[in-house]
């Protein structure tokens, strides 16, 4: 059984073996070509990364060490102020609240999104009429502009909105979803799950399709039940895709911004702030770009540690 430990090397293969029977004079050219080809394949992406990804990252980290507010930003000279931005953020209670919220938000969102996506992907391995139409329908939450989804959810969770009306039918009283600190937080998580599960669903679905049917048939011949097949074939074979989906899902969830910003604006009373909304508020409502960059850098560190955690757990499993 393959034990894949990280996104990295493929299972060890004898490497480039190359053509064996070649005339000697071609060998030199072939050798150079053999050496250079892998690099030629990655050349475009390295160029792109250096220009458009590396520069912004470096710029942002550099910004976090400077006093960059509205005054200094336009003027252009943003004096270096060491760790001041970080100190200011870390001593701010809203920052810690946002950090805690981000961790909880990510954990619960991923948990439900992945599970729902996985079960749906399993379900859709079967053929049935209207399957494609259903898939398209299930993708709507993810395809619809976040703008619309966020505003719609804001309306749904209105004190006299549909969700409370359904609650009425079930005998519950009106819950002030978006006005109560805890409930508002739950509401944002629910909305995020709705938006995010199609992503997990479709990627896991594609991954499952790649598992050759023969393997399943062999297992069936051996007398394995459906769930045994799933746990012994599907899940292990999906490991690389699962790791990728979870990793990307975590990153994207930590970065979620529009949804929470539109639904609650970080309120009420700073109770639903995520690091992303808090950074935005610091940057664009109070115009302290240096501090916003510092918060963003903390976000990066958070994601890195979450991913490392995930990988270590993966290795143990």
């Amino acid at each position, binding site marked *: 059984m393959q034990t894949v430990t990280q996104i990295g090397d493929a299972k060890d293969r004898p490497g480039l073996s190359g053509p064996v029977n070649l005339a000697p004079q071609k060998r030199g050219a072939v050798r150079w070509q053999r050496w250079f080809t892998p690099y030629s394949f990655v050349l475009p992406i390295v160029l792109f990364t250096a220009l458009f990804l590396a520069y912004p990252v470096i710029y942002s980290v550099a910004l976090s060490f400077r006093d960059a507010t*509205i*005054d200094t*930003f*336009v*003027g*252009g000279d943003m004096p270096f102020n060491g760790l001041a931005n970080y100190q200011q953020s870390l001593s701010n209670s809203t920052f810690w609240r946002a950090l805690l919220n981000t961790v909880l938000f990510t954990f619960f969102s991923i948990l439900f999104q992945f599970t729902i996506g996985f079960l749906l992907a399993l379900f859709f391995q079967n053929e049935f009429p209207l399957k494609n139409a259903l898939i398209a329908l299930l993708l709507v939450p993810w395809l619809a502009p976040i703008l619309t989804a966020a505003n719609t959810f*804001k309306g749904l969770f*209105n*004190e*006299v909105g549909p969700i409370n009306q359904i609650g009425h039918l079930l005998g519950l009283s009106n819950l*002030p979803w*978006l*006005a*109560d*600190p805890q409930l508002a937080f739950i509401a944002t998580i629910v909305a995020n799950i709705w938006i995010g599960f199609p992503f997990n669903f479709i990627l896991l679905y594609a991954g499952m399709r790649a598992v050759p049917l023969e393997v399943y048939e062999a297992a069936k011949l051996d007398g394995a039940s459906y769930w045994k097949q799933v746990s012994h074939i599907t899940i292990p074979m999906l490991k690389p895709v699962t790791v990728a989906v979870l990793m990307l899902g975590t990153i994207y969830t930590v970065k979620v911004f529009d949804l929470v910003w539109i639904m*609650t*604006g*970080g*309120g*009420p*009373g*700073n*109770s639903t702030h995520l690091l992303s909304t808090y950074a935005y*508020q610091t940057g*664009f*409502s*109070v*115009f302290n770009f240096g501090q916003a960059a510092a918060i963003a850098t903390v976000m990066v560190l958070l994601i890195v540690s979450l991913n490392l955690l995930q990988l270590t757990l993966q290795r143990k499993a």
Partner: protein
Amino acid sequence: MRRSWRSFSACALLTATLIGTTRSEVTTVEIVHYFNVQGQLDGLAAIKSDFESANPDIKIQFTYVPFAELLSRTLQMAAVHKSPAISCIDNPDVLRVAKAGALKDISADVSKFPTWQDTYPGPKSAVSDGQKVYGVPIGSNSLAIFYNKKMFSDASISNPPATWAELTDDAAKLTKTPVYGLDFSAVNTEEATWQWEPFLWSNGGKLLDLTAAPAKEALQFWTDFVQKGSVSRDAVNWNQGDVANQFISGRAAMMVMGPWMLGQVHKSGLDFGVSPIPVPKAGMKPVVPLGGEVWCVSKTDEKTEAAAVKFIAFVQDPARLEKICNTFNYISSVKSVAVKQGQANPELQPFVLQMDTARARPEEGGANYPAISLAARTAIQKALTGQSSVDAALSEAAEKIKAVVEKK
């Protein structure tokens, strides 16, 4: 053959240069704004065609930017030295942007405008820093109480509330599930502070002194509404657009709102009236915050700046000003024009009356206003949702404000 080609190309080149030079005489004035209601856009188009026919060497280009993005867009453009000629900046932000060095001081030009002397003190102070002037207000607005006439008559209330006590009573009387007596916006943006300021200031309170009694009373006043159930708990999530929606669809009997919403409320066919902000005790004068956008000239180059000033002079012409303000649902910042507006339209009258005592928001804290507002509205939200007591919330805010102010 070659010779004719040469002379041809020489002629072409000459013509092109001539055309080029005459073309480059036209200065383009780019104006960045966030008006998105059709009526306003039509108004802008009309201004543009009028101005361009009067000034053929200047071309006007309006660029729409969403409300939330305008400020960051102005700063971004300024940072790369590609500022638009004019930015329509919301008045509390003007001094902030000026401090960053993006705006031109137009005090010399402005003193030549006939309307400048007649401008209300409030709007003037919002754009002035000592002797320097950084913009000309397009118009002003503030807040008042909009009330549903039918609900009032149903509840046998004959007059709109004039004092705090009356407001509390009326709101309670008019609250009948699912209708709320009153609505205001306490959302986590400037709108919350803006909506609370009439009550804070009319009571003599100050943002820079939130732990004093007047401020506590003002916040308690608001909190009481929510606790009694006269105001929906969702107010902490509603911006002013949402509040208006509630009022228009009959879910609220009264709302705190400004003149820019008049068009929308009229469109809905609701029978409503407008009355000044209630004061703590009879005989006091309401002190309301000043809203409204400002034509700000960015630092670009001499030609563009001159053209921009010409445009502003054009729209400030008293004859045109009244029409423009009516299209945009502004009260003119120029007293004589505002008085005329109030006489022509009784719904605008409460706003006009309040203009005498209206206060510009940056008067408290100047360039620090955004940070101060943030602290204040966090306190408002915490108190309204019961996360903190009024006293605790205000103390927390006062501390944050102190830190910001002392950082100078």
